[in-house]
């Protein structure tokens, strides 16, 4: 995909994509499944902003309170990075994530998504995380570069049906997820236990 060198280019791209009406990505009735309540937490988990300590959502950056660019935890789904869903934490410390439960709440396990709407979300995130916004602060610039790279990477996977399918069958193993355990789903498929 095109890389956006200036924030102006990004703004234009967002303006041209705003005509797109996002599909009801979270409308679970689309796949004929009742809203699931597999996880007990009702509100999205938060973490303290590393800069101002305000509780912020896990994928949030820059901080909505102090506007500082902050790292985004690794091990969250591509869907979370692009704000299609919220991570579900699987530990008290909110540092490990229950990826299967999160994806089960999305239409077709996160496979069914509207690519045009996805592009709009990607552009908005790139706007928030654009390195130009942080010029003058070398550390912030390099963090912005890293995070926009992650946003791009997530978009490149999710926009493509093949890469998306491969990702959902086996999200890249990360030390912070327990999802990689499920990648060797061969005969052990029956060991998959949806939580009810």
């Amino acid at each position: 995909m095109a890389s956006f060198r200036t924030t102006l280019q990004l703004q234009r791209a967002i303006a041209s994509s705003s005509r797109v009406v996002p599909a009801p990505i979270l409308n679970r009735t689309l796949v004929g499944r009742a809203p699931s309540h597999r996880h007990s937490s009702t509100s999205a988990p938060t973490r303290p902003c590393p800069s101002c300590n305000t509780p912020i959502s896990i994928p949030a950056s820059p901080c909505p309170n102090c506007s500082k660019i902050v790292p985004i935890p690794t091990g969250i789904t591509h869907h979370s990075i692009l704000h299609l869903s919220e991570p579900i934490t699987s530990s008290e410390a909110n540092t490990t994530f229950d990826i299967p439960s999160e994806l089960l709440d999305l239409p077709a396990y996160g496979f069914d998504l509207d690519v045009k709407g996805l592009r709009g979300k990607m552009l908005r995130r790139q706007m928030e995380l654009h390195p130009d916004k942080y010029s003058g602060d070398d550390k912030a610039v390099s963090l912005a570069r890293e995070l926009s790279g992650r946003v791009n990477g997530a978009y490149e996977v999710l926009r493509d049906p093949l890469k998306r399918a491969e990702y959902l069958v086996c999200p890249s193993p990360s030390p912070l997820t327990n999802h990689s355990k499920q990648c060797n789903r061969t005969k052990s498929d029956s060991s998959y236990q949806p939580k009810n």
Partner: protein
Amino acid sequence: MLLAEILEAREELEMAESAEEVEQLRRTNQEKVDETIAALKEAFAGDPPDFKAAKGLAVQLKYWQGLEEAAKEWSPK
């Protein structure tokens, strides 16, 4: 069965003599791609999702997309 289908389609592409033939092949192939994506959606929509089926379908999709790439590069001999 899929392998036979793929091999047949590959052969058709190799034997193609006109751009029209290749276009026809690409149209048929696009249908396969769409069908496979629809089947993937169904596999993932299961409760629990059918990961084994999805894995197989992803392989099929890769084949059909590979064929599309080859067809795009086709030029008359």
